[in-house]
């Protein structure tokens, strides 16, 4: 009886997500074992490639919990990367540039949060304008691709190429050399942020306030929560996390350009939704979102390993998954309403 009531729709969705990831990954391992898909490094590579996305999805999950949305994230990453690249090219210290990027993230998020929380403008419109602002600003800063090289910033270059070895799961390559699996610093940043968000959502007043507002904003206000402020903080967190994600992203790409991270907002939203975060707010957690990112990463990885599939397949598959999950959510919601 008790276990039955605990198995509600949300838990089922999360289990479906985790199951889907396992099936996808296992499928990849079986189909492409000859191409090294089953090595631990393949999985680690998914983490490395998607470290930025993990950070962004954490922030987006917070915003979506309050029944909002933030589609400015991809463009903000492009702007941050461009600022990093241009700043370092003109000789500034990497640490200074990182701090600047973080401050910009806070300021930008605060402004968006103010518009959503205090002026009650639809989040979608606000963040869409934010997206265009950042994308345009990137071009205002520099229209060309700017690379970060060993010359521009030794420190940043070293971070980007640092390897953190994993003591197990290695393999012999076809030349008989033992390959030690590794991750990059960006993965550490992303996983720490994930852990932080998980704890914050579960164990702080602020975290529970996000859930309360998404569950029922009117009730939350009546119970004495400052809805406007909490909403603003959600958008601030999203932009800060996104800026941290931008640093991870820059560590991976070592460049800034106008067209960077286009459509990343879509990947982040679909990851969160596939991970069981409800678009109507109040339900979801970052663990689910993390698996959402892994599913997206696995799909890309499979398509890449296959080598023959067109590059647009990951997009289409992600959208198809998003479609399936949104419809499932909607059907669950309708069933619940009918019961009442």
């Amino acid at each position, binding site marked *: 009886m008790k276990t039955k009531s605990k198995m509600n729709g949300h838990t089922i969705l999360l289990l479906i997500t985790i199951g889907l990831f396992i099936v996808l990954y296992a499928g990849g391992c079986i189909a492409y074992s000859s191409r090294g898909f089953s090595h631990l490094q393949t999985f680690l590579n998914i983490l490395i490639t998607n470290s930025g996305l993990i950070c962004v999805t954490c922030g987006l999950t917070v915003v979506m919990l309050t029944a909002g*949305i933030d589609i400015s994230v991809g463009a903000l990453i492009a702007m941050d990367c461009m600022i990093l690249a241009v700043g370092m090219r003109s000789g500034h210290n990497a640490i200074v540039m990182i701090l600047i990027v973080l401050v910009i993230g806070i300021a930008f998020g605060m402004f968006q949060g103010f*518009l959503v929380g*205090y*002026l*009650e*403008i*639809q989040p*979608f*419109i*606000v963040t*869409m*304008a*934010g*997206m*265009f*602002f950042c*994308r*345009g*600003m*990137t*071009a*205002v800063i520099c*229209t060309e691709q700017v690379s970060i090289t060993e010359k521009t910033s030794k420190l940043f270059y070293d971070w980007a190429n640092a390897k953190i070895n994993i003591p197990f799961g290695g393999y012999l390559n076809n030349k008989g050399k033992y390959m030690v699996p590794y991750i990059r610093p960006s993965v550490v940043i992303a996983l720490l942020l994930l852990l932080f968000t998980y704890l914050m959502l579960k164990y702080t007043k602020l975290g529970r306030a996000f859930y309360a507002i998404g569950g029922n904003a009117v009730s939350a206000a009546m119970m004495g929560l400052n809805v406007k402020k909490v909403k603003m903080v959600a958008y601030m967190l999203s932009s800060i996390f996104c800026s941290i994600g931008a640093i991870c992203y820059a560590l991976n790409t070592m460049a800034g350009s*106008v067209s960077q991270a286009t*459509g990343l907002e*879509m990947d982040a*939203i*679909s990851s969160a939704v596939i991970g069981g975060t409800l*678009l*109507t707010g109040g339900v979801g957690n970052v663990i689910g979102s993390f698996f959402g990112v892994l599913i997206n990463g696995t799909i890309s990885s499979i398509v890449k390993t296959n080598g023959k599939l*067109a*590059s*647009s*397949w990951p*997009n*289409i598959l*992600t*959208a*198809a998954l*998003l*479609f399936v999950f*949104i*419809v499932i959510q*909607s*059907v669950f*919601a*309708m069933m619940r309403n009918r019961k009442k």
Partner: protein
Amino acid sequence: MNNKSVLTRIKNWNLLLPVVSLLLVMAVNIIHDAAIGANPLSFFMITLRQTTGNGTILYGRIIDILNRGSEVAILAIGMTLVVSSSAGTDISVGSVMSLCASFCCMLLAGYGVSSTTTLAVPLIVGILGGIFIGVLCGMFNGTLVAYFHIQPMVATLILFSAARAIGLLLCNDLIVYVRNEAFGFFGGYIGVIPTAFVIAALCIIVTSLFLKKTAMGMYIQSVGINPKASRIAGLNSKRMIFMTYTVCGLFAGIAGIVAASRITSADSNNIGLYFEMDAILSVALGGNSLGGGKFSLAGSIIGAYTIQAITTTLYALGVSSTQAPVFKAIIVILIVAIQAPPLRAFFKRRSAAKQVKGAAV
């Protein structure tokens, strides 16, 4: 007394916002032209010009705006209806445009062919095929919004992401060129007038006639204003919402074909890029509330051409096409912030306080 009533009438005129914006843009142009020493009225000059192909066309900045702004104007028609009926926006229109263009070009060139001068199927099949895909996409969005109660922007997010990718798939990741004169017609000229403008005008006229001759306009507004009362009065709210999304898809298809014809190719990655933003902006700039209900099609159309005028002006001022979004973003935020209820309430309180103060003195 009389003066005052004229003033209030202007204040309540529903096209005030778009017309004022348009006038502002013109003013900026005149000042800029005067400042750089050119003829201050060069913005309004229309001349006849010889083309390389020995034709004669109209030329001038206004003509350019009317020509280039046509796709957004076509999209704005559908977007206006969607916003009115469902208080939401269809963000997939740009992507759907691209998909329709790709499908049309794929049909015309044949699958896998990347460049052709002869058509694989009759032109009409390609065109109708492209538009048909647009309608299908609209129906998909409409089903999700009306029957599955999914927030409009989330529902349309699916095609926002997928449509462009499907288009790429249809074109084998290539830019498919259809270098055929008949196909290039839609992006070219009828006599001296740009075809795109004629198509946009036709779309506007047909839609206006439809709104005038059927009860569709009233139905859409009624559903957008009060869906419950509309249901009691015998309207089918869900079906109306479904229909507006379908119509929006149809116009996205038409806009996609015009865009493809303009460059006689299907450049999946770039056709319709960011057009959803322009279309939504047109609706807002047209004085329509993004909260649904009453709409003015004329406002949206003026809004669409105003946006093109802004873009053209920005280019004239030396802003590059990648930088232009900054200004558009600022304009969007200004427009929606002015309309934001808390800000309005704030100003109302302040002016009321002022009146009390004035009365006391």
